[in-house]
Every structure is written in structure tokens, then in C-alpha cells.
């Protein structure tokens, strides 16, 4: 889709969202909690880290994974960096999800019809 790239505000966001990266990023409970925290408002890393018992370093690694997956946007506010959930990433994940069974059934159709070809002209 020839949409203009997202604005500089979210410089850390990747150009393209990858469903695999999104799912992998979501596979960790701490990262899910982080997303939960920044779902409604942007927070600085320190405030996010304060909610966890893991080290700030660990939190910052999680933030990096989330950013790379395109789940978070990062913007500067003075000397702080603020993180917030990037909703389109979740929409992508949701779309992938909605397509799971339709995709699977499409593969089923392909497989069955390839395994059991049936010409257009019925054989007597």
C-alpha cells in the first residue's frame, strides 16, 4: 500500500509491520503488561519500570522488542522518552487472527483439489 510513511514522531517504528514479530513480542507476559500500561497514555521508561520487579535494564530490553515489532511508538518529551501503544499493530494482529481459519481452509481447499484433481469435463 502506497501510504506515506508514518511521521517522524514515531521514528522508532518500522516501516512495515510483521505479524510474526508482533506475535513474538506478545508472547512474553512482561511485554503484554507493558502494553497494557501504555495503552491509553504515553509513559516514560522509568515509570513503566517502576511497575515491575524486574530490572530497569530488562524493562528497557522489552521496550526495544516492542518497538521493533512496531507495537510501541517512542517520542521525546524534553529529556524523557515516552512510550505508547501503537494501535495499528494490534489491528494487524487482529486481522491476522480473523484470517486464521479462512487462510487454513483456503489451504485445505488447495490441498484437497491438488490431491484429487477433477477435470472440467466429467469423465463418463
Amino acid at each position: 500500500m502506497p501510504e506515506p510513511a508514518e511521521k517522524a514522531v514515531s521514528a522508532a517504528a518500522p516501516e512495515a509491520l510483521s505479524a510474526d514479530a508482533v506475535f513474538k513480542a506478545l508472547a512474553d507476559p512482561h511485554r503484554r503488561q507493558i502494553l497494557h500500561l501504555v495503552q491509553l497514555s504515553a509513559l516514560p521508561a522509568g515509570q513503566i519500570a517502576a511497575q515491575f520487579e524486574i530490572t530497569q535494564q530488562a524493562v528497557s530490553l522489552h521496550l526495544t522488542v516492542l518497538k521493533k515489532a512496531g507495537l510501541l511508538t517512542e517520542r521525546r518529551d524534553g529529556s524523557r522518552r515516552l512510550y505508547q501503544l501503537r494501535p495499528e499493530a494490534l489491528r494487524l494482529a487482529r486481522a491476522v487472527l480473523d484470517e486464521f481459519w479462512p487462510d487454513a481452509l483456503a489451504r485445505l481447499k488447495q490441498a484437497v483439489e491438488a490431491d484429487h484433481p477433477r477435470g472440467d469435463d466429467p469423465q463418463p
Partner: protein
Amino acid sequence: MTTTGELVAAVHIDAPPETVFPYFTDAELMVRWLGTTAKLDPTPGGVFAVDVGDSSARGTYVSLDPVHSVAFTWGMPGSDTLPPGGTTVEVTFTPVDGGTLVTLIHRGLPAEHRRSHEEGWRTFLGKLTAAAVGGRSAS
């Protein structure tokens, strides 16, 4: 029982139900379209296990009515939101125009439309887990 979400999907296949049905009960045929390895014991209570990479769907067959319908449970080991056996997939095979209409209903998914963010997240992630388990084995 809480409100449950459902996913419905259907496809028309140009082959009779007798041909299509085994793709849900025979491991070799299953992996032609779902997962990379499968262990299937197509009897009520029998194991339904499909692996996709390092994800796995685990459940048991609930009912089988050969060439008409099959139902199995679906979940993921270690998942709170989607424990093995936590949701049910019902598939029916209807003869249509010399082919088969395959209708699939995935029931018992956590309902989605929740105001509470907490709940919203849980359900969302539960559904994601279901999807991830199924495997975006693209390519």
C-alpha cells in the same frame, strides 16, 4: 459460562465429503494444510495435537460423524487464556454441487467486546494465542 466469542469460516471444495473429511482425521493429510506435524487419534476423547514450529495446538476429539461432521477442542499448553481443551472447533461437511461446503465454527473464544481494558486485553491476547498456535506458517 461467560459470554463466548465465535469465529466462523467456510469454504467450498471441489471434492465430495468422503474425500475432504479425512483431512481432519488423518495426520498426513492434516499437515497438508494445518501445521507441520500432527498426532491424531480420531475417536471421541482421542488426542488432537498439531504443531507449528514451536507452537502447538492441543485438544481432543469431541465427536466424529464420518463425512458429516467432526468436533475437537483446541488450546495451548501453558496458556491461561487458552488452556488445552479450552475452546471447541466444530466442522461440518455439506455436499453442495458435487463438492463440499466446509463450515467451521470456533466456539468458546473469550468474548471481545468488553469495556474493561483488563478484560479486553486478556481476551485479545487469548485470541492471539489461538492464532499463534494455529501458526502463521506462511511461506
